[in-house]
């Protein structure tokens, strides 16, 4: 049974990854799982400079989902390279750094620093964070700006580069094609949907930022649709993300066209869920007599 998949020349032992911002840097999960059994991890969104993120409250629960407005809290790329990297570089899995910035220059500088790190397999260019005032999603909601930042980072970043797309757009296919054309090795989708919660009793917005990003099973049908649409239109591989809670969900994303999948919010509900998904995909392959997992990719019957 082959469970390995590839993005460009990079091999993943299986398609199961963890999504940026939902898995810390990895060590947070070491008590629960063997990280080396994952296909890959994407670490927390990293920016050139240290960021404190948004004020509390940053989280709200919604029907089958949650809102977050963390706002890319992180210690900046230098602390990542000098400290955090050394705690995780031994993982026997693909480590992706999720890179964000307020300007194209910030993206580029951050990517340059990451480019020096031997044991980082690639970057995930986050042009879709809905929770920052500058940059973030603004880059991911128009083709020219998506092209500008992807092109600039491609110039300096030599390893695998996937671009993480925003679902808050009229036509995600156009953006996917645009970043493919300027050299993305893959696209990951979706980031969170811009959303909001109000407390009727206090009449206040629940989040300090009023709006935040919606994740969890609530958004799965939207994510699945976008993965399918993009898979019809681009030639580069897709990392499918959005509300994946179990192996069945993961397989649905692969059938829709995803090469790898990323588990996000589900990690909060069950920190061992990614292992269950690795195992569950194997069970499915046995049950359905599938020898090579690549046969599942885009395998939806119409």
């Amino acid at each position, binding site marked *: 049974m082959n469970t390995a998949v590839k993005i460009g020349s990079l091999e993943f032992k299986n398609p199961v990854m963890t999504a940026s911002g939902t898995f810390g840097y990895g060590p947070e*999960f070491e008590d629960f799982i063997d990280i080396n059994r994952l296909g890959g991890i994407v670490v927390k969104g990293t920016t050139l400079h240290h960021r*404190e*993120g948004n004020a*509390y409250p940053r989280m709200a*629960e919604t029907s089958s*989902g949650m809102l977050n407005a*963390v706002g890319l809290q992180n210690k900046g790329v230098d602390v990542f390279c000098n400290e955090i990297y050394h705690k995780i570089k031994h993982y026997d899995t693909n480590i992706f750094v999720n890179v964000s910035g307020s300007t194209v220059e910030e993206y580029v500088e951050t990517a340059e620093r990451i480019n020096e790190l031997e044991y980082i397999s690639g970057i995930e260019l986050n042009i879709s964070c809905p929770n920052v005032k500058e940059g973030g999603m603004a880059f991911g909601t128009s083709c020219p700006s998506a092209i500008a930042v992807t092109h600039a980072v491609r110039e300096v970043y030599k390893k695998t580069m996937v671009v993480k797309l925003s679902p808050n757009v009229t036509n995600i296919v156009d953006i996917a094609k645009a970043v493919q054309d300027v050299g993305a090795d893959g696209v990951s989708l979706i980031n969170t949907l811009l959303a909001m919660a109000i407390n009727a009793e206090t009449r206040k917005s629940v989040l300090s930022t009023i709006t935040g990003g919606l994740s969890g099973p609530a958004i799965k049908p939207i994510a699945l649709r976008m993965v399918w649409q993009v898979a019809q239109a681009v030639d580069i591989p897709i990392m499918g993300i959005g509300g994946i809670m179990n192996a069945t969900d993961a397989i649905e994303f692969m059938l829709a066209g995803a090469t790898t999948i990323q588990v996000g919010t589900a990690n*909060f*509900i069950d920190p061992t869920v990614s292992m269950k998904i690795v195992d569950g995909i194997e069970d499915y392959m046995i049950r359905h007599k599938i020898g090579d997992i690549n046969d599942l990719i885009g395998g939806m019957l119409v």
Partner: protein
Amino acid sequence: MEPVYPKKNVKLLKVIKNRTINDNYYVLEIQADHNVNDILPGQFVSLLVEDTRNVFLRRPISIYDVHPERNSIDLLIQIVGEGTRLLSYLKPDDTVDVLYPLGKSYSILESEKKALLIGGGVGVAPLLYLAKKLKANNVDVHILLGGRGAKNIIETENFKQYGKLYISTEDASVGEKGFVTQHPVLQYADFDRIYTCGPDAMMRAVASIAAKNNIDCEVSLENMMACGIGACLCCVTPTESGHQCVCTDGPVFNTKVLQWN
């Protein structure tokens, strides 16, 4: 010195007992799957309420007591919404999905020192196990419980085992009338440390009295948590070193590091 925290785990555990205190409060006793002796006071668990539409995330609950003799833990829970209501239906032999033990603990005073524990409402929860540990360390323990009225003053017999008990209620239905911060015991400010847990406003008021009297003060913060293990960065509180996570850097903080003004 950082204490040694036990490894975290997530497990389906058996409910041993569900004791109703009154309409609003109950105590769940849960069979632990590893040695409860290494659990420290102030640590918490996070419970999964399975398969409901609106309770999507886990619910953080302090560890109220541990019973090494049967390797179990007690959780004191107040019904405030859907999640805590659904958990109140658990019966002996039911299972519940528990992520534990989480968070940093209160620090234990050296023996012979004098401690004041102030709990408001369900904020008494982490203080019982703390009182037990303090007493075991020969600390002189004083406990002040406050609430709106008599029905919010719970478990007094339990607390009395470990120290001298004071009570205050806003409506004077039991103990002194007023807020905990108005209670006479706070006038004799000769404590080496104040430990507190309760509503935010109460903890801030206690912290400011402690500061005024130069008493060390540890609080246990509540916060909206998504993961409970430092992965999501949702549960931050502003501190002198920036945003820290209540779930992993806390829930217990020394008030001197908090930016509370």
